[in-house]
């Protein structure tokens, strides 16, 4: 393993993150805080408890997952797309680095950023709502697993995209709706049966549900299924990436 190479990529990407710390960190924290103020405090006070949890607390896991998903996709996508766009990718591809090492470097950096932002949002949320985390270790594991699988997806998008527009298209048109319809702000038991069943096809539901279970011990779907869903999703992304490097798709002519 070329650990120095992996570290070089990881550090380089993290340096980019800290260079634009305001954009990287403050803006997701600020927008999440606004969600807390509007949905948690203002509207939430008129919504009855869900599964024994106040609405303000109920949305915390969903909000964290929402941000972590978006950040993972965005960071990993940009991380690999940008060198491709400006041409510096040649250095990585001609270095003695294997595909696995390149992925660990870029995806590892995207995960570190997204998880860091997720944790900062979690800490921020304690300022707005009163809650306890039932299974902190599982919460952390789930957060990392979610971030890894969606960073892998972002990495694929970054390689696939031929323009910044394409890079933003999939997150905007596919991922954001899935996140909003995945029960970030409600329990799917609140939906009519047809929509409840349809929601089961939404992968984000399993993430939000599993993550919420780690907070409150209650979930829309059994937590084991959530875990399996994340792993299956990560496995699917890994297979696509393996194919990309084997075939040279959009990387090596």
């Amino acid at each position, binding site marked *: 393993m*070329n*650990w*120095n*190479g992996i*570290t*070089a*990529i990881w*550090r*380089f990407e993290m*340096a980019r993150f800290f*260079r634009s710390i305001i954009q990287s960190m403050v803006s997701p924290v600020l927008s999440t805080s606004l969600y807390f103020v509007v949905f948690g405090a203002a509207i939430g006070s008129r919504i009855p408890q869900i599964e024994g949890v106040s609405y303000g607390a109920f949305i915390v896991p969903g909000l964290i997952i929402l941000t972590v998903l978006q950040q993972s996709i965005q960071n990993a996508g940009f991380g690999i797309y*940008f*060198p491709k766009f*400006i*041409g*510096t990718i*040649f*250095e*990585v*591809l*001609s*270095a*003695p*680095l294997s595909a696995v090492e390149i992925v660990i470097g870029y995806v590892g950096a995207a995960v570190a950023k997204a998880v860091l932002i997720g944790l900062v949002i979690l800490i921020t949320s304690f300022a707005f709502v009163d809650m306890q985390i039932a299974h902190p270790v599982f919460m952390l594991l789930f957060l990392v697993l979610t971030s890894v699988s969606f960073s892998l997806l972002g990495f694929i998008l970054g390689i696939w995209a031929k323009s910044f527009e394409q890079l933003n298209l999939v997150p905007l048109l596919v991922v954001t709706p899935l996140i909003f319809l995945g029960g970030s702000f409600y329990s799917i038991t609140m939906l009519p049966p047809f929509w409840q069943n349809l929601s089961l096809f939404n992968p984000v539901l399993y993430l939000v549900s599993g993550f919420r279970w780690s907070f409150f011990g209650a979930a829309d779907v059994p937590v084991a299924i959530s875990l399996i869903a994340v792993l299956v999703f990560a496995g699917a992304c890994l297979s696509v990436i393996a194919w990309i490097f084997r075939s*040279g798709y959009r990387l*090596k*002519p």
Partner: protein
Amino acid sequence: MSSIVNVSGLGKTYEGGFTALHSVDLEIREGEILALLGPNGAGKTTLISTICGLTNATSGSVTVGGFDIREDWRAARRLIGLVPQEINLEPFEKVGNTVRFSRGLFGLPRDEALIDRVLKSLSLDDKKDERIRHLSGGMKRRVLIAKALVHEPRVLFLDEPTAGVDVELRRDMWELVDQLRADGVTIILTTHYIEEAEAIADRIGVINKGELLLIEDKAALMARLGKKQMVIELAEPVDAIPAGLMDFDLTRSDDGRGLTYTYEAGGKRTGITRLLAAVQGAGLVLADVETKQSSLEEIFVGLVHEGAA
């Protein structure tokens, strides 16, 4: 001299069906400066990209320092430094950081002293903390070279290092290449400037349409393919080439005073003695005689033209 890069039967056909390389064989000797000369689109960059692992070959094989680029790719790549044609740099990055990054990619531990040394050798020592976007074009190119040298490669590929660079910078670049060779680095550079190849290369390869037309020592190439011309200036103009000189295939200048004779520079029998005797026999009086050697440019144009025919 032993060879450091061995290319054999290398072919590359892109997905669209375009064949950029037709079975190229090339042996690069350790410590030499090899110039690959060819017009735009000849396959120079494809050849380099394939050796460096940026393009997958369709056929053939390459070894670098005895390591196959597919089987022992890690070992092969460690020996190679690549300076691309385009200035591919992150504008907001600092010089020191981008050079450090390159070294890390090659699996090497941090070595600030080495980085300082490399930057100094490229007159970039005071730019280490400068952001790349603040540098001039020439400096950016040197940053690219620093990035390619910081893992101490034994073979350096320079893809059109002086394209779009002014004359002074070009000379600096040539000096740098000379200095690198003195440090024992084998250098392969592509160019379509003939004067560049003529000025710095030990050997010259000519590529056109994906084929290596020839590869030869510069001096031998010039001697073998170079045509020499002898221009005879006459004291009195002539209206036509005299009958006695018809065998020599001369050309007459417009004013009738000059006769030009073309011959092979390396040939044993140049025909000069016979020609001069014939000139005398025709009763012409010489005012002056001048000989000219054809430049690499003329050789090159001749070769590319032949290849196209």
